[in-house]
């Protein structure tokens, strides 16, 4: 017996709707709980004052600054390195054992649990290079951690740029580098920005690797050699050690809001970039 395709169509559509609602629903519930529990503890003073008594009292200003420092510096290091690698892999090599090896390495790096990055950063940067628990050690560890994401997303974005665009550019007397700079990278920009956004999210949300390398000092990091803590670490310590659940949720609200803000900002930049080049 043949079922009416219109009925199947309706069933599939209903099923997909339920799935979509389910996914969005979970997200909304999580955010709602955090806001419900944390919002009452959020205030201007909470954001701009220093923590007291291990975070039981006061605000979270140093960890907000620490989060921004860590995320920005990691992106600043990882983006040129990752983008360069992606350009090299896509534009300057043919598929060979060598590129397969690099790609395999990148994929393996992406799959390593963050605690192992933390351990490596601790042994290498903190101990061996005598950086101590510091912003610098944290940034370098984070840079290595987000590199695979940046390389992979940039590579895919660059690969997706149609070959004909390059051919046209060459035919108009552009060199290879001019073509990459003026045609390929602008066209790949939205994809590259997506990778950067994902990486910022990862840096902002990371705890294990940060505790091992940047430490968890409550002071405001004033130099790259100072220890500090990010909001995620602060949240983890407040909750894990039962210092203050109220302050923990307050921190979580700020964390969620800042991730939201970063996303909005990134989309804004992305749309500007797209509008300029299309």
């Amino acid at each position, binding site marked *: 017996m043949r079922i009416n395709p219109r009925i199947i169509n309706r069933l599939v559509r209903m099923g997909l709707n339920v799935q979509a609602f389910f996914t969005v629903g979970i997200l909304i519930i999580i955010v709602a709980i955090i806001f419900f529990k944390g919002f009452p503890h959020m205030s201007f003073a909470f954001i701009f004052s220093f923590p007291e008594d291990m975070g039981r009292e006061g605000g979270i200003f140093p960890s907000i600054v620490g989060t921004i420092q860590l995320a920005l510096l990691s992106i600043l290091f990882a983006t040129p390195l990752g983008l360069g690698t992606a350009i090299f892999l896509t534009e300057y090599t043919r598929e060979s054992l060598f590129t397969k090896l690099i790609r395999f390495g990148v994929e393996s790096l992406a799959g390593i649990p963050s605690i192992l990055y933390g351990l490596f950063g601790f042994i290498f940067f903190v101990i061996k290079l005598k950086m101590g628990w510091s912003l610098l050690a944290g940034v370098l560890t984070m840079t290595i951690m987000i590199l695979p994401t940046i390389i992979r997303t940039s590579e895919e974005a660059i690969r997706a740029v149609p070959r*004909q665009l390059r*051919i046209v550019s060459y*035919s*108009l*007397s552009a060199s290879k580098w001019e073509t990459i700079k003026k045609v390929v990278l602008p066209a790949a920009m939205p994809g590259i920005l997506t990778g950067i956004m994902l990486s910022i999210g990862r840096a902002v949300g990371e705890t294990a690797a940060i505790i091992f390398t940047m430490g968890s000092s409550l002071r405001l990091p004033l130099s790259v050699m100072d220890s500090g803590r990010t909001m995620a670490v602060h949240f983890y310590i407040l909750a894990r050690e039962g210092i203050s659940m109220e302050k923990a949720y307050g921190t979580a609200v700020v964390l969620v809001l800042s991730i939201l803000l970063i996303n909005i900002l990134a989309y804004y930049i992305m749309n500007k970039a797209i509008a300029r080049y299309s």
Partner: protein
Amino acid sequence: MDTKISTDRLKVFFGKSQVLKEITIAVHRNTITGFMGPSGSGKSTLISVINRMIDFENNVRIEGEAAIDGTSILDGSINPIELRRRVGTVFAVPIPLPRSIFENIAYGPKLKGTTDRTSLHHIVEDSLKKAFLWDEVKDRLSTSALKLSGGQQQRLCLARTLALKPEIILLDEPCSGLDPVSTAKIEDALSELKSEYTIILVSNNTKQIARISDFSAFFYLGELIEYNTTEKVFTTPAETKTEDYIQGKFG
């Protein structure tokens, strides 16, 4: 007649297959020369030797000689980037760069080092006028080139090539995807342009070749079967293959 482009026993191999077999041809200055032939005849490959776009293909071997104004263009000392400023190309499918109309035209001149706004404006206006597109776009130069119609996009591509101030223009089936009105506009532009440029028009459309070219070459399976004035080729072809092709018996 004055020779602009010449090849001497030019052979091109892609891997093991030979796509051009001993092509010897002399293309005359300030004329439109039509290259026709069924697909796989090697006419597009010949074009890609002249603009050295063949450099971007893998596994290519070239034998014989190709020259512009008597100077070899296959020589190692030739800079292909410089060459492509002298030899402009318009492809079958119009591909505007994802930027404004103005920036599309200014792309080549900017690469050459022209950055002065007034000279760029001058080049853009001049090129668009020569491509018969100026009147349609003069009020919206800063809008995206992707918003133009197919026929306009192809004239934009022609204008973009003209902005390089080339000596030679190669057109690889430029009207294959265009409607008759757009095709007529391109043809009008080309007929005007031949006084300043040497034009090679690759086309599957024999009627188009007959309409606007001064000389016609017929290629078949990598060989140059016949090359003469368009009048001769179309009225009294020397080869039966040519005649069959023109009459649409195969192709």
